[in-house]
């Protein structure tokens, strides 16, 4: 039996659909455990991605990983789960390690594919510069799946939803304030990302980057120096010390491509680099390169994307 934990407090995220799809691919029945306020109708849709049933605890807000670990462990016991799956996001990083100790189950953190024929699981290591194959020695295992590693697949129809409560104990974490910009695509989940660096010369020049992102339906990101000097918010910073992402398309504008930046983005499927300096190291990691002035190239690219989008409708 496979158990998948998802956070559904803000609806069904793409990461959630990926983890359920992953669970289905392992074979056997898939139970989903979740917390929060998503409606039964929403949760039942997880059946389309392979869930056999969904168990929800609406009394748990999901802010305390200790509570979540108790909840997931209790449900894992109830359904006799041998594999528990998380997304390798803030929940996977906080809850999966706790659960590993609680269930005495080996944790494969940051899986990027379904298990190999020999049972090992591929994970990103050395900040994306290599992959490792992890073998779990224990009877039970926990896998946290790096977002955007597999695509959600619809294979079934709506499933049953059961409510549960009283399994999670009390929360030790008191939330005072949540600061979250509305409406933007969370970076780790974005399939398309437009990112810019110091080459843009100042925060007032980000209009064209946002315009390109809007035209593509992409999220925006930035390099470390730009976040450090306050041109852009810190949560947009991708790279070794910021967020690591693996979108389908990463467009880097005015970013030279330092090794620490590459570490955060080298899982991207396709990389486009726009830079005035033809010697910029980023071109070596790119699939497509444009040597040119961003202030000329990007408005042109925005128009080209708009023309393309117009032909798609």
């Amino acid at each position, binding site marked *: 039996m496979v158990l998948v934990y998802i956070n559904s407090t803000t609806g069904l995220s793409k990461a959630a659909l990926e983890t359920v799809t992953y669970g289905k691919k392992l074979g056997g029945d898939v139970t989903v455990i979740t917390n929060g306020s998503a409606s039964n109708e929403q949760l039942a849709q997880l059946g389309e991605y392979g869930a056999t049933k969904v168990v929800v605890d609406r009394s748990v807000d999901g802010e305390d990983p200790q509570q979540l670990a108790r909840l997931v462990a209790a449900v894992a016991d109830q359904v006799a789960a041998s594999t528990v799956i998380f997304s390798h996001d803030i929940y996977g*990083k906080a809850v999966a390690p706790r659960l590993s100790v609680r269930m005495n189950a080996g944790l494969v953190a940051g899986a990027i594919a379904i298990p190999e024929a020999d049972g090992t699981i591929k994970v990103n290591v*050395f900040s994306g510069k290599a992959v490792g194959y*992890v073998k779990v020695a224990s009877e039970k295992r926990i896998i946290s799946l790096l977002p955007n590693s597999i695509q959600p697949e619809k294979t079934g129809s709506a499933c049953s939803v059961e409510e549960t409560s009283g399994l999670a104990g009390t929360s030790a974490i008191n939330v*005072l304030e949540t*600061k979250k910009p509305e409406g933007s695509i969370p970076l780790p989940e974005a399939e398309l990302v437009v990112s810019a660096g110091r080459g843009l010369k100042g925060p007032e020049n980000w209009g064209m980057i946002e315009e390109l992102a809007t035209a593509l339906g992409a999220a925006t990101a930035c390099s470390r120096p730009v976040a450090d000097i306050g041109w852009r918010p810190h949560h947009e910073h991708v790279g070794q010390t910021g967020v690591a992402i693996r979108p389908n398309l990463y467009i880097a504008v005015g970013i030279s491509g330092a090794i620490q930046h590459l570490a955060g983005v080298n899982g991207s499927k*396709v990389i486009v680099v726009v830079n005035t300096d033809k010697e910029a190291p980023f071109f070596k990691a790119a699939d497509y390169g444009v040597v040119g002035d961003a202030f*000329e190239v990007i408005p042109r690219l925005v128009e080209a994307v708009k023309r393309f989008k117009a032909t798609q409708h």
Partner: protein
Amino acid sequence: MNILVCISKAPDTTSKIAFTNNSTQFDENGVQYIVNPYDEWYALVRALELKESIGGNVTIITVGTTTDESIIRKALAIGADEAVRIDADPKDAYFVAMQISSYAKAKGFDIVLTGKETINYNGSQVGGMIAEAMDLPFVSLATKLDVNGTKLTLEREIVGGVQVVEVQTPAVISCAKGMAEQRIPNMRGIMAARTKPLTVIPAEAVADLSSYVSYSIPNAKSSVKMIDPSNMDELVELLHNEAKVI
């Protein structure tokens, strides 16, 4: 305030990543080890700042062999008061967490700090595992930490934003960028580090739950296709028809 900071060694960020022994082992040839940056820049430095403002003691702990003593001396030179090395060559995060939690339980600390992940294995596992083994609250990916008596006020990263939370000591915290600024050890610190106490204790018998059986290096990108900067329609066409990403 009694603070335990967990540190790990990691290859310098500019190290060439290669594997040996039929791709089953990291090739340490020519690799310079450093204190894992998240452990040093954020966890250790914030611990020292708290000690300087409210008093207390900062102990660093690592699970490693004698070759790891250089990173221990570096952490002491930055300002930690004492160090503990649990003598083992760790195979997985679970082994490390069990050793550290066992030591920490016996000693009693107000705060246990870790970095958010190591830059070699990127698992983000040890902090949460220590918290569970000690049955303590865990705040992960914290970017700010303030202490008021037994109450900790933290900022932590959440999907697409940040959150301000409170928790009571004792607690385990994993530290991310924003927590503190890197400190360079000065000559006095380096001299003092030589005489600060380093306790070596044997590891407890713990079975590994997981192991790396092999590694590989992803294929390098085939050479970049350059596009004429005046022809962005071509780029869009390639992204659609060739790369199939839009």
